């Protein structure tokens, strides 16, 4: 049983270094900015989650009895826009990446602290546009903004929503830029590239995608605004445009965007698996380079979203082959995580449970992606619930499970307090069960031919939809419980100590919560990453001492 621990004599740390709202809103401390992101991103997750609840309630019966088709279109669009642009993309990089990257490389802060704060304000500005759209009637294009519907026929706030995503993109670019420069220029003495934690490699690869891909979506959305507002022809053949060009440009960013969501998660999983197996990750170099390979190959596969458009079948063949190739670096990671656990001292703490959940769910998501990369099968499955299930297995089962693993792993470092482990175990189990109950029936629905984005459906599909809606309730509980105990733990949790999990890595060598300047003395790195032998020796010496 966990009992409330009286607060100890407080040491100076980033949380109590300054007080007052102004000290938070004008802070340049990467850790405080990470918490600003945590609050904002969590708020958007709640809003996107409410939209998901409405969708699942509507789909519990075959008839459209909760809302009409227009409202349903707006609800699933806002669910997608909020969850992708305002939750999934910034979640791990902007919260955990911001907090941990300087700590992991032994730096006092990111390379550009002011730009870091600006990125949060830019994110909030984009968020304001999103909230405005939500409150003033919404948009019904789907998060993909496909033309010609978005440019010609939609009556919703298309330009405003595109503007929200456009502005938000700059926040991503600034964060990516900051991470790349920080990793190049601010590593502690002795911390060579191949001594970097895999979390840092994953964030470096993610940052490359952010910088190279995000400008393209910004330009694409700008072109969309120009065509919708000023009838300048880019996509409409009537004005001299190309009907598939929007999809090419959109997916050039939006497919790699999936890797912006999943790569940081993979970085978290590498850290968690290694720590809770007390073993150096099997094939460190392969895992590190597979992150870079995913970032590069991820840019070459976008055409598999266009198989049923008027895209050339020959181009489709090339995209199909390339899509199969991108599975290889992902598989390298999964096999290496499994090999890391083999003969390791595995401890099934909450972060590890989330990580194991990630491996299972991401593997299902990844393998069903191969189904969709096969041109013939994709004709049958395009725009069905199979696709919905597939990308939720990757984005929710993968990215959010990784995010939860990371939050549970580094929470004691962020706040210096432990959460109730029993409740965390329950939450991890509920999330895994609820997730599968929600989304596995959708594979079957899709295979049976139920299209996505419809609020009414034939009665024979109801049983799987009811299963899915019931699962969503369990999944919701799996998200609600951690929110409660994590908030509770900030004041009432056990004192965590600097290294409660027995992990390697520089972030565990400083106090929990860390001081504003991260380290009292700049650390000097003399060993390889994940050197558990050295850690054990240090602990034994400390124990004897």
């Amino acid at each position, binding site marked *: 049983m966990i009992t409330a621990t009286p607060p100890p004599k407080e040491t100076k740390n980033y949380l109590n270094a300054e007080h007052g709202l102004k000290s938070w809103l004008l802070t340049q401390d990467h850790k405080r900015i990470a918490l600003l992101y945590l609050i904002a991103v969590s708020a958007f997750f709640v809003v996107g989650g409410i939209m998901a609840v409405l969708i699942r309630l509507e789909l519990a019966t075959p008839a459209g009895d909760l809302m009409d088709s227009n409202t349903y279109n707006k609800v699933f669009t806002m669910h997608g826009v909020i969850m992708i642009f305002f939750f999934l993309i910034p979640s791990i990089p902007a919260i955990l990446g911001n907090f941990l990257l300087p700590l992991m490389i032994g730096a006092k802060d990111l390379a550009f602290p002011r730009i870091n704060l600006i990125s949060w304000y830019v994110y909030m500005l984009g968020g304001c546009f999103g909230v405005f759209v939500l409150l003033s009637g919404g948009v019904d294009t789907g998060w993909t903004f496909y033309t010609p519907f978005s440019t010609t026929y939609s009556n919703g706030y298309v330009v405003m929503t595109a503007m929200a995503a456009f502005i938000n993109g700059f926040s991503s670019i600034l964060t990516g830029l900051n991470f790349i420069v920080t990793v*190049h220029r601010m590593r502690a003495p002795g911390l060579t590239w191949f001594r970097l934690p895999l979390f840092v490699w994953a964030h470096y690869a993610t940052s490359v995608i952010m910088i*190279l891909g995000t400008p*393209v979506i910004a330009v694409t959305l700008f072109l969309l605004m120009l065509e919708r507002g000023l009838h300048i022809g880019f996509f409409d053949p009537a004005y001299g445009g*190309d009907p*598939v*060009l929007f999809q*090419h*440009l959109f997916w*050039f960013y939006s497919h790699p965007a999936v890797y912006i969501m999943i790569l940081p998660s993979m970085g978290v999983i590498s850290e968690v698996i290694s720590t809770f197996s007390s073993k150096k990750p099997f094939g460190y170099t392969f895992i590190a380079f597979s992150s870079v390979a995913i970032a590069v190959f991820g*840019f*070459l596969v976008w*055409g598999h979203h*266009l198989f049923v458009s*008027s*895209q*050339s*079948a*020959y*181009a489709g063949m*090339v995209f199909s082959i390339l899509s199969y190739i991108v599975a290889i670096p992902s598989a390298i990671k999964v096999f290496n995580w499994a090999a890391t656990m083999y003969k390791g001292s595995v401890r099934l703490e909450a972060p590890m449970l989330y990580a194991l959940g990630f491996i299972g769910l991401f593997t299902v998501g990844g393998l069903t992606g191969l189904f969709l990369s096969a041109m013939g099968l994709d004709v049958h499955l395009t725009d069905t619930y199979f696709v919905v299930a597939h990308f939720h297995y990757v984005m929710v089962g993968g990215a959010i499970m990784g995010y939860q693993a990371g939050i549970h792993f580094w929470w004691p470092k962020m706040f210096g307090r432990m959460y109730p482990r029993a409740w965390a175990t329950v939450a991890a189990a509920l999330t895994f069960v609820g997730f599968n109950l929600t989304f596995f029936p959708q594979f079957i629905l899709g295979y049976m031919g139920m299209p996505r984005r419809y609020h009414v459906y034939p009665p024979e599909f109801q049983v799987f939809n009811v299963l899915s809606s019931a699962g969503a309730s369990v999944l919701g509980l799996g998200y609600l419980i951690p929110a409660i105990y994590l908030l509770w733990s900030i004041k009432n949790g056990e004192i965590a100590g600097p290294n409660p999990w027995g992990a390697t890595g520089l972030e565990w060598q400083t106090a929990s919560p860390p001081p504003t300047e991260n380290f009292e003395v700049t650390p000097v790195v003399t060993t390889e990453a994940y050197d558990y032998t050295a850690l054990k020796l240090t602990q034994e010496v400390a124990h004897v001492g």
Partner: protein
Amino acid sequence: MDSHAEHHVVPKSVYFAVFFTLIALTWVTAWISTKDLGSSSLNVAVALSIAVFKASLVVMFFMHVKYGTKLTKMIVCIGIVWLLMLLFIAMMDIWTRTWMGVPGR
């Protein structure tokens, strides 16, 4: 670190020269758009060539890449390669769309 790259001070005259070149090339672009060069493709090619040259001036002088380190130059090159990749692969679709006949036509 190449200290020369970090501390290079560009004379104002260079900035003014680049600025006026950009203005002049904008005027040339507008002027040439009123001329028929024989085919619309040629007009587009000339306009794009001028635009690429103008962009290069901005990148080299206003963004200081000409005086930057090898790493900076490499990152700029990667950006250009990525842009070419987008254009080339998207064009791959457009070039081959008509290879396969449309049923009924």
